[in-house]
């Protein structure tokens, strides 16, 4: 199973190394060549787009299927300092984002604050702190008791994050966040059904995730993360 993380780490490292190398590599020929490749990849991504429902939509669906807030399900906020590699940071940004949504949808204000702190901290670790700025934090603090407004703010903020990462040509990080969020939502659903095996609607919602997995494969195939996703796919 370690292969999964290793493969994801490799694909992510490859990409983040590319970013870091840019500044030091002064050979214009090489840069033009790599830019050409980037252009080709961007063209592919831009013309065939794959996407999956956001954790907000999925968690709302799970709530309607009878899910409850179980304190043991989300990731431990204290683990945030353990995540050092780009792969770990990207995937766990997705995990904490889904946990933030889970707390918000179930009106758990204390947990919402915990996971908001995690997401903001992870934003700093991923060098995207400009997205989780003062005004976003103020908006969130003002609306922490208003579930509907919170969902809107979270969705808009993650949209900004996705757009920013693509602007910075860090599509790989964006794909990892989406994968992490999807796994966490699926984890919450499967853990719930484990406790409540008679819940047929929840089983149905879990089975429906086969479509999201297909789209996720398409998304990852469009970027450079194919190898890592194939590992996840074969594990599932």
């Amino acid at each position, binding site marked *: 199973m370690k292969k999964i993380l290793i493969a994801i780490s490799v694909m992510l490292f490859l990409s983040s190394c590319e970013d870091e190398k840019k500044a030091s590599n002064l050979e*214009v*020929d090489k*840069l*033009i060549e790599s*830019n050409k490749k980037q*252009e080709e990849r*961007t063209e592919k991504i*831009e*013309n*065939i*787009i*794959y*996407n*999956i*429902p*956001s954790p*907000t*939509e999925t968690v*709302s*669906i799970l709530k*309607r299927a009878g899910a409850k807030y179980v304190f043991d399900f989300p990731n431990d906020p204290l683990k945030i300092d353990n995540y050092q590699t780009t792969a770990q940071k990207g995937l766990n940004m997705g995990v904490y984002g889904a946990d933030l949504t889970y707390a918000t949808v179930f009106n758990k204000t204390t947990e919402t604050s915990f996971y908001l702190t995690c997401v903001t901290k992870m934003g700093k670790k991923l060098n995207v702190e400009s997205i989780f700025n003062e005004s976003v934090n103020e908006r969130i603090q003002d609306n922490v008791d208003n579930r*509907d407004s919170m*969902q*809107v703010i*979270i*969705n*808009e903020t*993650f*949209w*900004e994050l*996705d*757009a*920013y990462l*693509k*602007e910075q*040509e860090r599509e790989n990080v964006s794909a990892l966040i989406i994968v992490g969020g999807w796994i966490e939502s699926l984890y919450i659903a499967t853990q719930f059904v484990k406790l409540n095996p008679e819940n047929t609607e929840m089983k149905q*919602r879990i089975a*429906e995730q086969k*479509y*999201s997995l*297909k*789209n996720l494969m*398409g998304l990852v195939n469009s970027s450079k993360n194919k190898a890592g996703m194939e590992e996840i796919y074969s594990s599932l």
Partner: protein
Amino acid sequence: MRNLFKTLILLAFLFLGLNSNAQCKRFTKKQCIPELKEYTFNGQLNTAILSRGEDAELMLSFYSGQKYRMYVCSEETLEGTTFKILDIDKNIIYNSEGKESNVFDFKVPSTQQLIIQVSVPGQSNTHSLDFQGCVSVLIGFIED
């Protein structure tokens, strides 16, 4: 001299790429997202920079038990942009051609993948920036 020329081309590419993405983001935020109104924006980023005569295809999944608003929002340079919705077997199940707007409200009987084909009319050989623009496909949802 040759290297300087290459550097300038490279910088131009990088600048145009970043600039068009940023422009697309601003456009989507200001002009498109507000049109979802009472529907909750799902936070998906489905944007493409297209030229006249170009198509884009999206593969998205939709849950049963929700109402959806899809808005295919394009910049003025891409006037006349239309979209079709196809099922997974490529049967056309909705066509926006001839409709008043590119906003479409719908629901699905079962959770499924749908294909959205966006088409910008015109000749495909016009790659000038004047004929390029941003297209955003936005999805909002609401409990049925």
